[in-house]
């Protein structure tokens, strides 16, 4: 299978703290790669580095073989890689549909076309009943879906999801898992950061485990669950595989 994303020895320091240290991994076409790790492990920083929001101190990022290291977030998004934010960033005064239109405008210049894409996506993530509400009025669970919807509307080849399940009810998590599976079946490649173990273990083809900025393990969910370093990193069995 073709290589979609290649991360090569990425390092990022903030003053004395090394948030990401020498991290490498690859993501193949239509794969779902999970990234887990305790709070502060460097997962979000890794996304910032890949999506162009932070410049790495060392290392390179390749999107479909093209070196995108140091490119701007808007350029990277145009090349087909879109990320969501763990701390949701809705355009508060715009309606849900208008929020999604902003994403859809990346590949369509006409409002009618953009709206058509946006309406489909809004329906897909289950926000249709809220389409005409200002985004600022949405509860947190819906805001997470809006993050996903906007990113999807850019029609990416590869999607980076940063904790899109945080704050969702168990039923909503079930729906989200279904949605993500369907997206992959539709041809998307997905990298997903998640604390919700059951979700990540059931969704991911492979999992990368981070701890204190380093990648400490990589493998199938099964392999990861049995890895002694992983269990140690999570200390006290925060890791539950049901």
């Amino acid at each position, binding site marked *: 299978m073709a290589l979609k994303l290649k991360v090569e020895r990425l390092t990022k320091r903030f003053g004395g703290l090394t948030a990401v240290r020498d991290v490498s991994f690859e993501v193949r076409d239509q794969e779902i790669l999970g990234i887990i790790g305790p709070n502060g492990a460097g997962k979000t920083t890794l996304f910032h580095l890949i*999506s162009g*929001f932070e410049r790495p101190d060392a290392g390179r990022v390749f999107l479909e073989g093209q070196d995108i290291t140091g490119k*701007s*977030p*808007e350029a990277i*998004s*145009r090349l087909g890689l*879109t*990320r*969501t*934010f763990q701390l949701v*960033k*809705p*355009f*508060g*005064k*715009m309606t849900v549909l*208008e929020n999604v*239109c*902003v*994403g859809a*405008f*990346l590949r369509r*210049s006409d*409002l009618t076309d*953009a709206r058509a894409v946006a309406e489909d996506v809004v329906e897909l993530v289950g926000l249709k009943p809220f389409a005409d*509400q*200002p985004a*600022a*009025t949405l509860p947190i669970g819906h805001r997470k879906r809006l993050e996903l919807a*906007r*990113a999807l*509307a*850019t029609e990416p080849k590869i999607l980076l999801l940063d904790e899109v399940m945080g704050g969702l009810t168990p039923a909503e998590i079930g729906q989200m898992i279904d949605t993500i599976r369907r997206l992959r079946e539709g041809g998307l490649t997905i990298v997903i950061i998640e604390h919700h173990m059951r979700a990540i273990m059931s969704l991911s083809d492979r999992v990368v485990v981070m701890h204190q900025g380093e990648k400490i393990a990589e493998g199938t969910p099964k392999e990861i669950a049995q890895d002694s370093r992983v269990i140690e990193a999570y200390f006290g069995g925060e890791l539950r595989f049901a």
Partner: protein
Amino acid sequence: MLKKGGFVLSAGLVVLLMVALIYQIKNKYYLDILFMTFFWASLAAAWNISGGYAGQFSLGHAAYVGIGAYSTALLYINFHVSPWIGMVVGGLFSALLALFIGVITVKVRGPFYTLITIAVAELLYISAIQLKELTHGSEGVSLPFKPGWVNMTFRERETYVVLALLFVALIYFITKTMERRRIGYYLIAIRENEDAARALGVPVKEMKLLATVLSAFLTAVGGAIYAMYIMFIEPDSVLSFAFSIQPALMSIIGGLGTSLGPLIGSFVLSPLDMFLRESFSHINGLNLLIYGFLLVLFVLFWPEGLWPNAVRVYRKWRSGGVETKS
């Protein structure tokens, strides 16, 4: 929501109606108030494109008013260039300055951007006083009274009022058109959350530049029309700090980043300002004190602006008293 054709038609009707009304007014003072109201509305609406939609909070738009006024006046008296052409030249000069400011402020946000715009306007004000060869310094420039369309000079005050009205209508139309297009969505997205916009592929730098350049161009055209109306320009009359402050104030009071907000802001504040000036001129500064006090009240009671507030009240009334909280 009105269909596009319906919108153009109804806006056209409103303008026609207003033109008809203008010709009913014989009182020179009222016509002056009306001209100033439209003129301020055009500056506010032009400011709103960059300050309101794109969130580029400039307090230096006086620079563009001045450039528009001086370019037009100086080309006219020195080279007999028609003000219609002069105002486009002034617009282009302003656009260039805006581009320059935009490029040097690419990395700065918020208050620093505002400070730089204030500094540039101040620099231009000082230059206009100092460069006597070019601008006649604080002596000012008098424009000859030679009525005719080519000279943008008219016997009847009504014509100037109509001109100002048409200019407001043009800017309103531009803004309204933007709102229904990618550029409008992008500008609002940038204002609401720049990082989220970038993640969705919005070319933030280019969009901000575009908004600022357009805003500067239109502001300069406004300055040109104003120069032809007052027929005498000096640094204090066309580069005054008021041209930087008032358009921002009117947009805020009326509703930032909305197409009607700045117009409503001007329709309320301009007559108010002129009325207070007229009524309380016997005590120096009293009119400003009252004006300032009223502004505070506006901001306290309608912090989102008159227009967004009116829309909300209307929606509430229509939906039978159930307010949708925003």
